[in-house]
């Protein structure tokens, strides 16, 4: 079974050299730490940065330079700054190659719910609806089951939706899966020490298992 770092490490393997990537808050943010050295991957922050760098050194933080999570950050050489409308323009026009974000639920058709829980204080969708509606490629980083032990990979999302038919791949503490045409979670890899049976039990939606399912490799 993977911990959060493990999920981030596994997702990092999906990031290709020479691409633009938008990372959501939480586990997705950790992915930046595991992108192979030497890869030219440019991070987009939807508040208006291409080429986001690491946090600043103590004392060098700049109130005017934050990321979409409102954290102080830095710019890499070659970075550019733009306004929020152009930022979502490039997202909508599918110039960003990969979006990685968290989810509360994903359906076997690739629908995603990650912004609202009825009865709880609603903070808003931020940029998530724009991102999921437009991204060329979306990978979800999430826990396979919730705290009550219920599957978050469902036939149909129960929570209010963020977007429909958009998720391409899911990495959880148990498995890597992709969404197949017509509906279904196809099991691609098992986490170290996790059996297909365990994954089946944790997946409420249609699970597709084809032949031997390899164990994932993480350094």
């Amino acid at each position: 079974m993977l911990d959060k770092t493990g999920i981030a490490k596994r997702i990092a393997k999906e990031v290709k050299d020479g691409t633009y990537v938008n990372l959501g808050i939480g586990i997705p943010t950790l992915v930046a730490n595991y992108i192979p050295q030497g890869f030219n991957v440019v991070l987009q922050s939807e508040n208006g940065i291409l080429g986001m760098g690491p946090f600043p050194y103590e004392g060098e933080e700049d109130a005017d330079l934050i990321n979409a999570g409102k954290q102080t950050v830095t710019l890499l050489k070659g970075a550019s700054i733009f306004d929020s409308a152009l930022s979502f323009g490039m997202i909508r026009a599918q110039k960003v190659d990969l979006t990685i974000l968290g989810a509360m639920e994903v359906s076997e058709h690739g629908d995603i719910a990650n912004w609202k829980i009825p009865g709880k204080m609603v903070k808003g969708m931020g940029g998530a609806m724009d991102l999921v509606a437009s991204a060329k490629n979306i990978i979800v980083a999430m826990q396979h089951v919730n705290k009550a032990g219920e599957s978050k990979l469902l036939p149909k999302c129960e929570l209010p939706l963020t977007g429909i038919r958009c998720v391409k791949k899911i990495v959880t503490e148990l498995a890597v899966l992709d969404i197949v045409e017509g509906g279904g979670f196809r099991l691609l890899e098992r986490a170290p020490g996790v059996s297909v049976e365990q994954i089946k039990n944790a997946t409420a939606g249609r699970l597709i298992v084809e032949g031997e399912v390899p164990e994932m490799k993480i350094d």
Partner: protein
Amino acid sequence: MINKTVKNAEEAIKDIQDGMTLMVGGFGLCGIPENCINALVKQGTKNLICISNNAGVDDFGLGLLLQTRQIKKMISSYVGENAEFERQMLSGELEVELVPQGTLATRCMMAGYGIPFFPTPAGVGTEVANGKQVINWKGRDYLMEEAFEADFAIVKAWKGDTAGNLIFRSTARNFNQPMSLGGKITIAEVEELVEIGELPADQIHTPGIYVHRIFQGENYEKRIEQRTVIKRS
């Protein structure tokens, strides 16, 4: 050039009246028009409809106008980090309209481009689509969204000149630029107000024609919401 300068925030906002719709720039606490917000608190204008990506924190930014109950409705994409906001929303004192962030920014920009509505895929199949026209275009669904009609846009820039030309700094640009285009009347507060000729024509982010009033703000606090740093070893 046409001189757009006014003396201070009080003068800039003096004709903002109860019930008006305002675009307020900034993302989180980054790039917010601190002086104008303070002046609005002082002026006591009520029942405001505020279009702003966020609602500030309890004791800073739009949170100040929430404390004084001057805001009737917030149109935002994300409103966490504010206990008073939560209380007013749950008690029904405050109306909240949640809008996807890209749609929000584009609705501001389109007002400045004279384009009254536009299609976007954001929100298709979600509750954001409720009551909106859905159009299928080349096999894909889009929601029709409207440009905002705001009585005033209140933005904060880094530098500005007396003709109203604006230059933003770093990610404090955010919503300030599209909102500066989109207000019926745009008020800009700047950290540094310079004479015409000092800002290179090619580097101006918002041309002065969009800006009706400009002044140099005072005592910028520029509070940081999430101070994340690397310790020096």
